[in-house]
């Protein structure tokens, strides 16, 4: 225990943007009970976010939290951000890697709570010395979120040891699905953390530090480290992430009819092969990079050489990150089969600082609404959105941020908002207010989106239940799905509280997590961990209910029931029954 006392994990940094001041609180019990990351984050959110808070008001706190394994073991490399989402009006949670987790841990904090609102644009520099508040007025309105990163990289210290989290114009303009970008290629993507930054006049947060961390049992530590490291680098468990990357899913999903295409009018895209992981690797993969302390290096960067149309012998070479979800949202969902066009849409989305998945789904809805005559080019400010036409989508993305017309002001609030004004709710693909991820594999996937506490495919990975059922020929039942999804989401609370990347979920089992923690002086049995996961999930649901979420009244988009999925037509009754079972479980009445 003496060793743990030297560990700065339980220090929480509270930053007050109203007064431009900060304080540090020791919360050893909180970290002991909830591990860190999501678990500590939901507690801090419940404590600091008043009931019914305006997500874009000064009362909405931003929580960043990491866990004890960060800095000790590979792939404990994520930072959990919790906030009230301006996109859904409910629980906001988003995870990002890059160097964010290591930087925060090395700066000597387990969590940061940012409260209030600065009167003028600022950025924060967080180090072991505390917080510096720096003027960001000159950065406000810069065209690209990347440029802000470039400037701060030169202006601030700590190269290699820091995280530079920043927003683009989308965050400044409080588009409800604006993201926060860190290390250029990682994002707190979903649910609008960028808008919360913008609402606080907070342009960026730079975090850096360098320290050592105590070990309880050196021999055991090295042994467990080596076991995990070897599993990461030498076994099949993570191969897919470091070879083709997640974009390897595109072709197989398409083959089973689970790749949402043209606003989910189909689960198959005839151009899938053109934008697949295989194609991208063969013709565009320019570099692979990693989060700090992750030898898997799953981040795939495409090199795209673009000629300037009117200047011969002038070219620019873009380096753009791609993953399955990006290829889905800015490829198949928009009917784009041309890699260059797809990457240029992604590029604009990155400059503006929007969540790629929400942006893609919203543009897909708008394209269909225009084709159906629900809106006209009057609404779109002259842009004719057409499947496959990248240039129209690039213009629309700019307008979602600059919001020249009422229509774009609605688009900037998400697909639910737009459909509530213009119609087309049956093909507005959102779940609990959050736009759809790239899986139409069957009821498991959609139940996961509907019921997951973040309405994300990462909450409970329902798509894998669908694919398993498809492979093994076992039918999916309401009860089976409900319980399996809850069990998975419950365990994932442990991973996200220890901020272990979900890609390493096959490596970090309850048993070896327990051993890994023991070696650094923290005792938890595998059973203890399981119970903590359940508790955290229940508390997230308690927060959701407090803020008005009801699983029984969540909207099921009609389109998912009309387009055949990988496992066939989806039955509304099955979905509703499963939601009922889950509601009873969360109520404690099941």
């Amino acid at each position, binding site marked *: 225990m003496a060793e743990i006392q030297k560990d700065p994990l339980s220090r929480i940094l509270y930053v007050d943007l109203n007064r431009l001041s900060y304080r540090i609180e020791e919360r050893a019990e909180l970290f002991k009970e909830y591990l860190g990351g999501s678990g500590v984050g939901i507690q801090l959110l419940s404590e600091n976010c008043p009931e019914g808070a305006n997500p874009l008001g000064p009362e909405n706190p931003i929580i960043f939290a990491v866990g004890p394994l960060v800095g000790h073991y590979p792939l404990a490399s994520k930072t959990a951000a919790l906030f009230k989402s301006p996109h859904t009006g409910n629980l906001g949670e988003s995870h990002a890697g890059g160097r964010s987790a290591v930087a925060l841990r090395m700066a000597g904090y387990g969590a940061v709570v940012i409260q209030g609102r600065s009167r003028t644009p600022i950025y924060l520099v967080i180090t072991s010395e505390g917080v510096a508040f720096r003027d960001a007025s000159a950065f406000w309105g810069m065209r690209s979120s990347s440029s802000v990163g470039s400037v701060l990289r030169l202006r601030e210290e700590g190269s290699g040891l820091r995280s530079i989290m920043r927003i683009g114009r989308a965050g400044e303009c409080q588009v409800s699905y604006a993201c926060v970008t860190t290390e250029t290629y990682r994002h707190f993507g979903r649910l609008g953390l960028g808008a919360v930054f913008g609402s606080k006049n907070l342009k960026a947060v730079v975090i850096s530090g360098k320290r050592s961390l105590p070990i309880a049992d050196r021999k055991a530590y*090295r042994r467990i480290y080596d076991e995990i490291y070897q599993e990461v680098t030498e076994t099949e468990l993570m191969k897919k992430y470091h070879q083709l990357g997640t974009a390897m899913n595109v072709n197989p999903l398409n083959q089973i009819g689970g790749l949402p295409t043209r606003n989910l009018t189909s689960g198959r895209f005839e151009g899938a092969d053109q934008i697949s992981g295989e194609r991208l690797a063969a013709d565009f993969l320019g570099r692979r990079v990693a989060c700090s302390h992750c030898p898997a290096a799953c981040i795939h960067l495409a090199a795209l050489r673009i000629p300037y149309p009117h200047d011969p012998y002038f070219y620019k070479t873009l380096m753009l990150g791609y993953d399955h979800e990006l290829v889905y949202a800015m490829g198949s969902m928009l009917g784009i089969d041309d890699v260059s066009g797809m990457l240029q849409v992604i590029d604009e989305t990155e400059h503006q600082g929007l969540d790629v998945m929400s942006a893609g789904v919203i543009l897909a809805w708008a394209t269909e609404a225009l084709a159906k005559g629900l809106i006209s080019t009057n609404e779109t400010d002259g842009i004719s959105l057409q499947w496959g036409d990248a240039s129209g989508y690039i213009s629309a993305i700019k307008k979602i941020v600059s919001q020249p017309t009422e229509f774009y002001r609605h688009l900037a609030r998400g697909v639910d908002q737009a459909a509530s004004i213009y119609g087309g709710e049956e093909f507005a693909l959102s779940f609990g207010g959050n736009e759809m991820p790239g899986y139409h594999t069957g009821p498991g996937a959609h139940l996961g989106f509907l019921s997951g506490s973040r309405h994300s495919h990462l909450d409970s990975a329902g798509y894998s239940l669908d694919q398993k059922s498809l492979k093994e020929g076992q039918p999916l039942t309401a009860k089976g799905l409900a319980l399996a999804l809850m069990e998975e989401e419950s365990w994932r609370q442990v991973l996200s509280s220890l901020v272990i990347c979900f890609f390493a979920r096959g490596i970090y089992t309850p048993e070896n997590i327990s051993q890994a923690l023991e070696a650094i002086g923290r005792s938890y049995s595998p059973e203890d961990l399981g119970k903590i996961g359940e508790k955290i999930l229940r508390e997230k649901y308690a927060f959701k209910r407090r803020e008005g979420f009801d699983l029984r009244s969540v909207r099921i988009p009609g389109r998912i029931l009309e387009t055949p999925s990988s496992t066939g037509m989806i039955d509304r009754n099955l979905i509703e029954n499963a939601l009922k079972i889950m509601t009873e479980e969360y109520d404690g009445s099941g």
Partner: protein
Amino acid sequence: MVKRLSVIDVDRCVGCQACMFACVRRLGKGGLDGTCIHIQSAGGIRKGFQVIVCRACENAPCARVCPTEALVLREGGGVKFNAELCIGCENCLEACPFGAVFWDQEHQKPQICVYCGYCADYCPYEVIALEEIEAVNCG
């Protein structure tokens, strides 16, 4: 022949920093303080990475400027450090053109690679390796 840590192919570096963590783990600690190897982006991650580590110079500038012989030349290349003789003047820190002399804030002394190669064992992409120092032969 003595060995040193060589950067074999910096273009294969993914920036995972596993080498940095390994260097500290060698000392029985977690975290990053005490690392004698440093990975940073080459001006933004899109441009790749730089590996900063002692290249075991034959006539090492860091040893040449040491006033107390705490840092002395190692036969065949590189340096040896005797902490007891060090007065923390930071001359070595200034002298290394690679920035490969790191600084221990707590003890106010330099931290320099000891050419053990532990970090290279944790480089999954063969960016770095412990190699014998070859004399440069210009024919």
